[in-house]
């Protein structure tokens, strides 16, 4: 424990570590070092996201159309759930800072209580993020990928999105998933999509009010919708693969890079929240057991507090650059 608690043995000896040039303890200073380096890691991710977005600035997915779901409720609610998650995280930041404040006044019970609320907030946030991931991976309407890796989505003549199931015609076929037990061990394929590309193409031709929406943005920042003739020609000529949901290779919402960055950035952040919850639980038990009561100060709570606020700080930026801008 000597390494985690700087005590006053070395006080007054300039080179013995007792001097505090920045009037912050060793532990807090090291936490700031870590936070700064972690901030640079996150900004590296976000700047790389910006790079890829600028590279495809005229065809990037619109976040409002991607994240539209709220658990247990059907309908189109862009932003609402992410705003809720942001609020939960800010709220848990507040309970954390209240725990730190109670620690300064050596109020043992309130520290434990506020730490407990912080942990609950963190768990709600991680759970929500898991749900976001699941919804994103499962997909919404489905789309068709072209030979060049572009995504074609379907709308009706009023501009409402159409799911593949709305128009695809089921055909009788014998296509089975190729598994590696049926041939050479290194060769297999992903599970087949609900509809094959032939079924989608046949259904599209038979549905007069179906149109194709390509990724290119118009001047108003909306996706371009092709005319019926252009749509038929485009799907027949370039359509190659049915995409449902998103993974690291295919993404029904648009550029695969969007999904890659979504998984990477929110995943890395979610991992931070998860570790934060774990650390908070350890500190919570230390508080309950009276470790800091005996030590005479609650600086440990302050240090994990810094980390927890940092996680909140990062989310503020992820929220802006992934969901708003």
């Amino acid at each position, binding site marked *: 424990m000597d390494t985690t608690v700087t005590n006053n043995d070395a006080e007054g000896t300039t080179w013995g570590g007792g001097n505090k040039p*920045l*009037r*912050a303890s060793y532990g807090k*200073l090291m936490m*700031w070092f870590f*936070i*700064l380096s972690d*901030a*640079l890691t996150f*900004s*590296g991710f976000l*700047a*790389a996201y*910006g*790079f*890829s977005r*600028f*590279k*495809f*600035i*005229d065809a990037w997915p619109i976040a*409002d159309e991607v994240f539209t779901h709220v658990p247990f409720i059907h309908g189109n609610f862009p*932003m*609402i759930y992410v*705003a809720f998650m942001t*609020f939960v995280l*800010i*709220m848990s*930041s*507040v309970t*954390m*800072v*209240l725990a*730190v*404040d109670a620690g*300064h*006044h050596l109020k043992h019970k309130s520290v434990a209580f506020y730490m407990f609320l912080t942990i609950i907030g963190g768990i709600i946030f991680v759970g929500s993020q898991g749900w976001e991931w699941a919804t994103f991976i499962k997909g919404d309407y489905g789309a068709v990928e*072209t030979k*060049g890796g*572009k995504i074609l989505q379907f709308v009706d003549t009023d501009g409402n999105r159409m799911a593949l199931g709305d128009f695809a015609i089921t055909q009788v076929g014998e296509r089975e998933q190729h598994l590696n037990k049926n041939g050479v061990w290194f060769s297999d394929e992903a599970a087949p999509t609900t509809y094959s590309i032939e079924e989608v193409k046949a259904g599209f031709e038979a549905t007069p009010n179906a149109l194709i929406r*390509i990724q*290119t943005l118009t001047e*108003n*920042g909306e996706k371009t919708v092709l005319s019926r003739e252009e749509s038929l020609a485009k799907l027949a000529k*370039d359509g190659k693969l049915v995409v449902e949901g998103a993974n690291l290779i295919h993404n029904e919402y648009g550029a695969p890079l969007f999904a890659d960055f979504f998984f990477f950035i929110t995943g890395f952040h979610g991992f931070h929240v998860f570790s934060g919850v774990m650390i908070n639980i350890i500190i919570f038990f230390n508080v309950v057991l009276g470790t800091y009561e005996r030590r005479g*100060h*609650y*600086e440990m709570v302050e240090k994990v*507090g*810094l980390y927890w*606020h940092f996680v*909140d*700080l990062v989310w*503020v*930026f992820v*929220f*802006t650059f992934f*969901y*708003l*801008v």
Partner: protein
Amino acid sequence: MAHEHKLAIFRGTLKFKNNIQKIWGVLIFLSIITAVEVVLGIIKPEFLIETTFIRMKLLNWIFIILTIVKAYYITWDFMHMRDEVKGLRRAVVWTGIFLISYLVFILLTEGDYIFEVYNTGFQSWNF
């Protein structure tokens, strides 16, 4: 361990009686900013989308500035940067601001250049 807290925010125009009140005050302020961001993100006022300033929509400028404001209050009041000495504050904040601005600048410039190459090149990417 009882630290002295600086209890005024907004450059001293809003003073709080104690630290706990300040925490709730900052929470209310941050919640208002988040609400404004979400409402703007949903209605997307046409004026803010049509007007651009240095090649970026006014709306996006607003989002980014509000984000930095939020980051400021989280760092200053929740992470107690307001109560630290100047040396620590500057060492952390300016290092971050300098390196991050530099990184963002070079990566966005490069991304824009690649977009131009794709956009004006002879090769068709849309097939």
